[in-house]
């Protein structure tokens, strides 16, 4: 590939992602409205899609207020970290054959590293706001995300064993005949649950917990800084959905009547829909219950999964 091609891919991916993240504002609100027997945004543009524009404009024109009691630089840094780290994760995702920003050998590890960085945005944001609700949210967020990182990483190791590579391209190629969701069902379930916890979406939106902590770690944010958290959340959903599609559902693989990138996006959007459906239907567990599920149920399960996968892989090879 030439340098120009690389630049086009980078810009293209960035463009598509930011638009998806913004478009999700509309998708989520329309879907939620549909499931909740109401209309949702339906005034601006066809089917209300221009609500995205209106929302973005509104965020841009809002006063970008930094509370006088906040730690100014950390306060500014926190929202940048969330968007930055999530966008960086997309670097390793193969959208279609040849369309990947960086075809890293350690792709999966890079993804895990980047999602670990995301914790900083919550912790710093909550800490820098110098607000009790934010602090509580940040503490909850930190322990939740660090805990679920463990399960997320471990749940993917089964795939790595079967593929023998951390490279996402190789992982997709290994699913030519069978998707990993069939050989690693437990890994899929745990990865998806951990993914919800990582993106702190309902039912695991414990760091925000509107009815308890108002908005948790980003309670003090306004204007475009709040917008960054907002976009960061939607990018996070897209990322987890894309990763689920790539790792367990064959990524861009699919029958030939659609181009590979279309398969990839279809699968991704399916999981985004699941994210929104979960938000529409489930209540939120308590913080200690969430941690309990994690350490008492998910951890043993994921270790068993690892052990069994390893044993089978050994037998097949031997």
């Amino acid at each position, binding site marked *: 590939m030439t340098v120009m091609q690389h630049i086009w891919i980078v810009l293209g991916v960035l463009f598509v992602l930011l638009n998806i993240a913004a478009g999700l504002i509309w998708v989520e609100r329309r879907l*939620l409205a549909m*499931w*909740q*027997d*109401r209309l949702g945004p339906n005034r601006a543009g066809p089917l209300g899609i221009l609500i995205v524009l209106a929302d973005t404009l509104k965020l841009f024109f809002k006063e970008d207020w930094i509370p006088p009691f906040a730690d100014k630089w950390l306060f500014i840094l926190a929202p940048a970290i969330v968007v930055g780290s999530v966008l960086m994760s997309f670097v390793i995702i193969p959208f279609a054959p040849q369309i990947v920003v960086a075809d890293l050998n350690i792709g999966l590890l890079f993804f895990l590293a980047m999602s670990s960085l995301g914790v900083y945005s919550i912790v710093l944001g909550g800490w820098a706001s110098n607000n*009790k*609700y934010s602090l*509580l949210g940040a503490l*909850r967020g930190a322990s939740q995300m660090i805990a679920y990182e463990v399960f997320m990483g471990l749940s993917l190791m089964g795939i790595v064993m079967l593929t023998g590579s951390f490279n996402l391209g190789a992982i997709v190629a290994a699913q030519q005949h069978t998707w990993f969701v069939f050989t690693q069902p437990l890994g899929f379930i745990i990865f998806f649950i951990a993914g919800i916890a990582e993106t702190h979406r*309902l*039912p695991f*939106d414990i760091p925000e*917990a*509107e*009815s*308890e*902590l*108002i908005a948790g770690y980003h309670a003090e944010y306004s204007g475009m800084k709040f917008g960054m958290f907002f976009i960061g959340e939607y990018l996070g959903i897209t990322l987890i959905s894309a990763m689920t599609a790539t790792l367990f559902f064959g990524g861009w693989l699919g029958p030939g009547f659609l181009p590979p990138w279309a398969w990839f996006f279809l699968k991704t959007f399916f999981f985004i829909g699941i994210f929104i459906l979960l*938000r*529409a*239907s*489930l*209540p*939120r*567990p*308590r*913080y*200690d*219950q969430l941690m309990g599920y994690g350490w008492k149920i998910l951890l043993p399960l994921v270790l068993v999964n690892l052990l069994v996968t390893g044993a089978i892989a050994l037998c097949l090879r031997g």
Partner: protein
Amino acid sequence: MEHDFDILRHLQQTLGADIIHQQQPVDEIPTCWIAKERIVPAVLQLKSSTPSPYSFLYDLFGIDERNRIHTAGAPPSDFTVAYLLFSYQQNSFIRLKVPLTGEYPTLPSISSVFKNANWYEREVYDMFGIRFEGHPHLRRILMPITWQGHPLRKEHPARATEMGPYQLWDEKQDREQEALRFKPEEWGMQAQSEDADFMFLNIGPQHPGTHGVLRIILQLDGEDIVDAVPEIGFHHRGAEKMGERQSWHTYIPYTDRIDYLGGVMNNLAYLLAVEKLAGIEVPDRVKVIRVMLCELFRIASHLVWFGTFAQDLGQLSPVFYMFTDRERIFDIIEAICGGRMHPNWFRIGGVAQDLPTGWDKVVKDFTDVFPKNLREYNSMVMRNSLFKARTKGIGIYTLQEAIEWGVTGPGLRACGFEWDFRKKRPYSGYEQFDFDIPIAQNGDCFDRATVRVEEMWQSLRIVTQCLHNMPEGSYKADHPLTTPPLKKHTMADIETLITHFLGVSWGPVIPAGEAMSCIEATKGANSYYLISDNNTVAYRVRIRTPSFPHMQMVPYISKGYTVADLLSILGSVDFVLADIDR
């Protein structure tokens, strides 16, 4: 009745002869006057009397007697503090009154005997300036700390024009804000313990989980609640004071707004007391119309609770479905009354108008469609395992504690006690209806929810019975004090014309006396205690609301749980701020 007199006689024997038995008030609750030195032993004795202890302090309030003309042989007093005790075993009330003289009298506190007396005594102090000796923390509860005067004293103005325009200059604003600052030492709280620094967190006055303007100050160790102090009064509108200015008739819309989810049920509680004073017996049709509308409002209120409770726990969708069904109920209310949340529909001696043609169709449409929906909500919320995890074993209190703290309604029935005022002390013809009292055993958040859901089924049964058995007859009692009065004889008879004219222009003059109603409202026992001084307005309106004691109990039942659990507890208690603050 026999038992009541035994108790009074017994009190007289043990505590001395200076206990005066009052002439029977209109509501036939045995009432006696007792000197202030004797009040604590008297209350203690009543609470411990066997076999039927008066274990429930139903209400405690003050009366400013200084302008009263018709005192009905009561001992001389400037102020009266009245105690209303209830015995579940005997199903009977007893009322003790303490006469007090002087501008700012004092009397001993009974907060060591009854836990829920604490807030009631603070309210009396706030409203009348009467001090209670031995009260652990006597300070204003409903009015701002900086308030001058005590509103329910007769010399305190009630009109805005008497108060002068409200101004808030910078200095005053700073002073008011400083007064709202929470000082843990004032409440006997430590800022740190041996091994932890505590965090004090303001929940409210603006907070999505408090369902209104309520402030709860939490003392937190991490996320665990060490102690909590609810601050109420942000929703205080002086409803009791208004009652002393509005005529008996024009006060009805104010009652609508006490428990604003209960709608006409508030009218009923008020009017039952007025009708007792006036001696009006309403026709059967009125009773059944009232019951039907009340039960529809009970369902509507429980639907709001159900949806917002699920929402507090993070379940976003149910509230939309339930509000849609509530809207169906409001369609019925609107078809019959014209109003929605505050229909202001019941009248002294009847209802405002007869049922419109076709009312049965709209009610039937609802009773046909609602059971299916309610079953769906049940499986959506109550059977959800995350919901159960958030509510089971949270906010538990025992039956003993419930009675001690003055819990009534679904919160009491969730402790396994089958008590419903509609069944036990029937009013407005409830004895004619066939329905059950749902109960649950554990007294936790989940059980309180179960009881409410089951209550909706029972209310639906009652509404269906009303639909099928609506009696014929007049929608107004044929009585001179019925308001607005019947007009049919006015053109033939000058006396009727004069009565009608006075009734419409001044409003009715209700004969002197005291009466209390007691109904099973949506959230528990709701009462209006009315004193008439033979006038067109009430001399004193006392509103006993269920949410007030329930809120008082919240710190007690939330200690040791986490912030997230507090939301479950608040949701399951189901309070309305307007019902607490009045």
